[in-house]
């Protein structure tokens, strides 16, 4: 399978900043994967996402080295116009990415900007609303939406542009646990239905481990760890990089040490219980 995203030796320093926000960063993401990006605050996660969708270097100038390729084309040499159609960026605060007075107009915002003809735009907006199950909100104003609904509307606006790669910056940080886990379920469903690739910056690993193919842990602008959720979370280093292992995984680790359960794959609470019972009988 081909890589939709290829980052090679990326380095970036914001102007007037003494240290590099990203250094020597390498990453290849095959099409259709869900990759989780974790790491302590200030380690450069948001900066990396900006470099993926082209805000760096097109909007933020600074010292830029290495390369980022999306779908084979170099981000640095593409225009924001082209990149907007390739990479969808869901920002942390949905409030600040909803511009228009009605949900459907907002979802259409990117398509209007691209000059997409009205009938096609209508179809794509309706499809995005269907995918996110927000059809009945079409004519609502942004201030009439809950946080979870705003998040869906913002995501619909991103999906309407039909990007092959969607990057999300801490999408659940403003959501309650139930809405957060719904959002994660949505990401998994969209990957399945559309084959879209997702790179998700997230602290709440407990929600994402079930759907993620890979976890990348960053530290100080560098890639510290990379592997499947099981590899990263069962490893010794994750905790030292401030990655909070889900408590169920910590339990599995402890039990596995005593040989009570297998360690190869991440288990849910139910699986762990079944495995323990099986071991006893």
């Amino acid at each position, binding site marked *: 399978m081909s890589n939709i995203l290829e980052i090679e030796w990326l380095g970036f320093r914001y102007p007037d900043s003494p240290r590099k926000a990203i250094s020597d960063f390498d990453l290849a993401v095959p099409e259709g994967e869900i990759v989780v990006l974790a790491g302590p605050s200030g380690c450069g996660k948001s900066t990396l996402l900006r470099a993926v969708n082209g805000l760096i270097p097109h909007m933020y100038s600074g010292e830029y080295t290495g390369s980022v390729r999306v779908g084979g084309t170099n981000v640095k040499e593409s225009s924001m116009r082209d990149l907007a159609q390739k990479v969808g*960026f869901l920002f942390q605060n949905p409030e600040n990415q909803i511009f228009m007075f009605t949900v459907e107009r907002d979802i259409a915002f990117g398509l209007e900007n691209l000059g997409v003809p009205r009938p096609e735009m209508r179809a794509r907006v309706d499809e995005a609303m269907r995918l996110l199950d927000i059809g009945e909100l079409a004519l609502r104003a942004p201030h009439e939406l809950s946080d979870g609904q705003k998040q869906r509307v913002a995501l619909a606006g991103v999906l309407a542009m039909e990007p092959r790669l969607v990057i999300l910056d801490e999408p659940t940080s403003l959501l309650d646990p139930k809405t957060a886990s719904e959002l994660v379920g949505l990401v998994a469903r969209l990957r399945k239905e559309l084959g879209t690739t997702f790179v998700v910056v997230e602290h709440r690993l407990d929600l994402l481990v079930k759907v993620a193919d890979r976890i990348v842990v960053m530290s100080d602008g560098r890639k510290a760890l990379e592997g499947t959720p099981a590899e990263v979370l069962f490893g010794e280093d994750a905790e030292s990089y401030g990655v909070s292992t889900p408590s169920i995984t910590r339990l599995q680790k402890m039990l596995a040490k005593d040989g009570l359960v297998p360690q190869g794959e991440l288990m849910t609470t139910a699986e762990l219980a079944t495995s323990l019972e099986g071991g006893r009988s």
Partner: protein
Amino acid sequence: MMWLSSGFIFRRGTSAYHRLDPRVKLLVSVLMFVTTLLVRTLYELAAVLLFMIALSAFATVLRRVARTMAFTALFSAFIFALNFVFTRNIETSLLYAARFVAIVVSTSLFFITTSPDELEQVMKTFRLPRDVIFAFVTAVRFIPVMFLDTIQIMDAQKSRGLELEKGNLLRRVRNMIPILIPLVVNSVVRSGELAEAMESRAYGAVPRPTSLVEYRTSLADKAVATAAVVAFALVAYSFYFVIPAQIL
């Protein structure tokens, strides 16, 4: 602040008037506005006001218009007093005071029946630059957000012991600073994030962006627009040529 919000901020409505093309509503309001300026006697003005009240009732916004009028009355009392001091003429002073009310009503009738979306459409027909329109759109879009922000900041600062309602005027103004600074900081952060989100969604990619919704002028729109222009012409004509002011 409150009278502004009740008299000028759109709330969704379903009346036939709400459904008119926004440009037609603008035309009607502008013509009413001009009529109030042409008016020379209290009787004529009373007739114009009566028409506006009838129109408000038709648009099912009478209560809000009435509230606007009540609040405007304060200002018009002031206008009356000022005019009376200078002219010593009750009738002229009354005319000016009432005219002010009529002007506010004609304007507010437009704003309370026209959604921000439609306002945007009107701006587009006037071929304003896209940036100007978009600046307006986001400004209006974020009014409720900023409003909530302000309340939250006020609560937070109050819980830290800030006393907003205490002291003399100067003291009270100074007390606003801990409210204003976070508000400004919030807005700066917000505009940065907005700019990123705009770029990421291809803002400015093509010189002539398309639009999801199309406002088509219906037969009713054309009929209302024609009727408004004809009525205005007749009224203006009669004011000056048919009915001499002295008779009324």
